[in-house]
């Protein structure tokens, strides 16, 4: 019975990593490529780890795999967020059908500062980007 769960999770994980690679190949934009690669890749790796945990039914392996899954879920979005923020700061363009860009009005690309709103409608450049 457990072998079917192993088969299911292993196949799902491998197919999701393949879907992540297809997204990396076909998406039109750096941000969309990053989204596809990180989300689907993390889910695929987590699913394959669950398959290994079911195959070897052992408590030590459960602990190892829970550590790896929690670490992936904590760190992969952080890395992708930092990379997307850096690529927005260096001025990479978005896809022409992208509808929303929250950072465009708040970041000054000439002298690299964030604009903070002091009063209603008044802009002030005081936060220096490190």
């Amino acid at each position, binding site marked *: 019975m457990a072998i079917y769960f192993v088969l299911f999770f292993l196949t799902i994980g*491998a197919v999701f990593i*393949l879907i992540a690679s297809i997204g*990396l190949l076909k998406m039109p934009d750096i941000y969309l490529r990053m989204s596809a690669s990180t989300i689907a890749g993390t889910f*695929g790796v987590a699913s394959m780890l669950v398959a290994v945990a079911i195959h*070897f039914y052992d408590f030590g392996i459960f602990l190892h795999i829970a550590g*790896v899954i929690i670490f992936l879920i904590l760190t992969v979005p952080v890395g992708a967020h930092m990379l997307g923020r*850096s690529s927005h700061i*260096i001025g990479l363009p978005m896809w022409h059908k992208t509808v929303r860009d929250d950072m465009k009005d708040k970041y000054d690309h000439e002298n690299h500062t964030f604009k903070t709103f002091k009063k209603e409608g008044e802009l002030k450049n005081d936060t220096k*980007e490190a």
Partner: protein
Amino acid sequence: MIPAADTPIGFALHFALVCLSLAYFAALYRLLKGPTIPDRIIVIDLVASATIGVVLTFIILTGKTIFINVALVIALIVFMGNVAFAKYLKKTVCDD
């Protein structure tokens, strides 16, 4: 010990290896062609995912569970690489 390709678990393992190698080829294409530097950096993430998948498939194939540490170490190093490359990219534009 290694299951043959006509048993269900052997077929699933071989199918997983085929999918992961296709993912490697897609990542290689994006690494060679990618127009900008962040395109080449996000390949690290997918290559790490595919490498962890190959390591896990190897664990199920051979039964050597000590190699789960390899998956943990790869996850650690990839985060460090992402953060370092993001800081480097930002420092190409803002000088401080």
